[in-house]
């Protein structure tokens, strides 16, 4: 936190946003021809590409198959050029394995896996440009790719990170805010039922502020949901108009 003023007296953040303002969302569905579903989503300067294939037969050892639901397989990777310093290993390090696990846990709750017993759904996500909120962008991109693939979901899964500076929750933190070392909470929400599919918090946050931060995250996720569903509707309208 040394030196950098994350929230000015006028209530502006380092990149000129207000505390509860999201970054600009851009998304395109169906960017890849070969995959069952794909999406490219950009949230501010963070950009992720999600590819979904499946449901298909179990790849690899058949023993992984579940008799009552589908297996969700997630792989997260960061492009070597995604960060300011060139990354040596795009995937396979501890952090990316953890991220893959978190993505899998998130989507296992959201996808109606019981409809596809003994099959597998693959979600591959790659961060092309990293500027904070990697997990959230990945979740949003993967949701859009799942929608594109036509895989039945409980609801959209919208994720948003929230920081906390000067008693104020900062919605959708960028890299500078993340790196400052304050608390950052990532929430993945099913907006319609307001159920939390995933929740993680880093660094110290007093318990009294927890409800405020969670509330801010809920509002942000609902805003994101509005944007994402509008994008899906527009894409579908375009597609049907073309026929």
């Amino acid at each position, binding site marked *: 936190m040394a030196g950098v003023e994350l929230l000015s007296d006028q209530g502006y953040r380092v990149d000129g946003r207000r505390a509860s303002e999201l970054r600009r969302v851009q998304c395109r569905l169906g960017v890849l021809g070969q995959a069952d579903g794909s999406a490219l989503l950009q949230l501010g300067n963070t950009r992720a590409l999600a590819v979904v294939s499946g449901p298909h037969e179990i790849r690899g050892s058949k023993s992984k198959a579940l008799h009552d639901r589908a297996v969700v397989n997630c792989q997260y990777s960061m492009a070597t050029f995604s960060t300011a310093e060139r990354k040596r290993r795009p995937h396979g390090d*501890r952090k990316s394995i953890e991220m893959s696990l*978190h993505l899998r*846990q998130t989507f296992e709750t959201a996808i109606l896996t019981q409809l596809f017993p003994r099959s597998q759904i693959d979600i591959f996500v790659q961060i092309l440009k990293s500027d904070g909120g990697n997990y959230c962008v990945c979740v949003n991109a993967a949701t859009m790719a799942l929608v594109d693939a036509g895989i039945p979901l409980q609801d959209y899964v919208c994720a948003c990170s929230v920081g906390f500076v000067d008693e104020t929750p900062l919605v959708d933190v960028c890299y500078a805010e993340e790196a400052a*070392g304050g608390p950052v909470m990532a929430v993945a929400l099913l907006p319609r039922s307001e159920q939390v599919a995933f*929740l*993680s*918090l880093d*660094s110290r946050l*007093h*318990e009294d502020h927890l409800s405020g931060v969670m509330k801010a995250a809920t509002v942000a996720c609902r805003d994101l949901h509005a944007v994402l569903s509008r994008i899906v509707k527009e894409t579908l309208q375009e597609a049907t108009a073309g026929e």
Partner: protein
Amino acid sequence: MKETPLSNCERDFVLLAVREKKRLDGRQTYDYRKVRIAFGTEYGCCVVELGKTRVLAQVSCELVSPKPSRPSEGVLFFNLELSPMASPGFEQGRQSEMAIEMNRLLERCLRSSRSVDTESLCVISGEKVWQVRTDIHALNHDGNIMDAAVIAANAALAHFRRPDVTVQGEEVTLYSVEDRDPVPLTIHHMPLTTTFAFFHEGSRLLVDPTRLEERVMEGRLLVAMNKHRELCALQASGGIRLLQDQVLRCSHVASVKVLELTEIIQRALENDVQARKEGRCCGLAESLPVQRVTVACAHDAVVNNEEARRRADEVVKCAEEPADTEGAVYHRGPHTAQVGEGLVNSWVVDDNEPKSEEEQEEAMDDGDLEGVKVENEEVEELSDDSVVILETQHRAPNVVQLSDGSEEDEVIILSGKDLMNVSSDWSRVPLSVPPC
């Protein structure tokens, strides 16, 4: 080895128990298992037991060059090892996804919350800093390894002492433990985790799940908090959908639990310091509980038997007078008499008379009769068995009382002097009952 799958029967049983708010070990929903913390003889070694879950933490340090991005900060390293020793389900070698997740959680919990002051670990900025390494080994897995590991890591870090260093100009002196007292680490706070297991689509939750409960649960929420009620990490995972209120409620519960746990750790640390100061035995072997069967002392157990005693008295009062069995004393050969009718004694009776007569003569010499007499009405002598049947109907006040209502037979061994009369006069047999 792959873990044995849980049978449907067990699963249903646990789920039913959870629904009825019961737990196999008798705990309540929000109860923690018993926490036991033991320190080793060396600094920074600690074993934590959480019920049957047991983990060992060992802190070590060495001088390394710092990371270029943080030249004036020491390095903290955490490693949680899940070996097959703890559970056959854990694989040797390669870390499983679960192990990586737990390792990351441990790092997030302890490192990113800055529980240990890293700047005080710097020796020369940009050149030499201390690397403090915490290795945690799971020794036995009975659920909730994460909480036990975090307790162990915290306790071990607080217990650890690093060698003292001084810097004079360019010269760095590292003092051995003998030369200077080692220095403790600067601990800002202790983040401790509380694990909540969710069942029945999130409608039921349990604190500190055992292994069986862990295998049945749908998801878990892990709340790391310090005693100042600051959340240090939060993680909901395992495919469960939660509502906001649930998360808030869990954080409240966690704040209470963390206070209790901090207290336990502090007490354990103080006890250890005290023990070291007084030169008492300390160390892991010392603190292991004695679980032998052959313990030399019996522990008094307080049992309330008032009720039983009262009822017994009543029964005795109401009972009919026992049949007239008292006083039926059978004298079976020399040295032996019998009260009541038992089996026929077959091994003393074959004694030949003359020998026993001699013994009795000898016995006559020592001591007087203590006036113990039995009045007998009838004496019958059976030629073969040489059994004397005595019927003691009336008793003199100083005559032995055979005061038991039990119908059981009693064999009374008569001492030699008592039998004096037998030899001289078969009609008078004094009886003395040895104290049972």
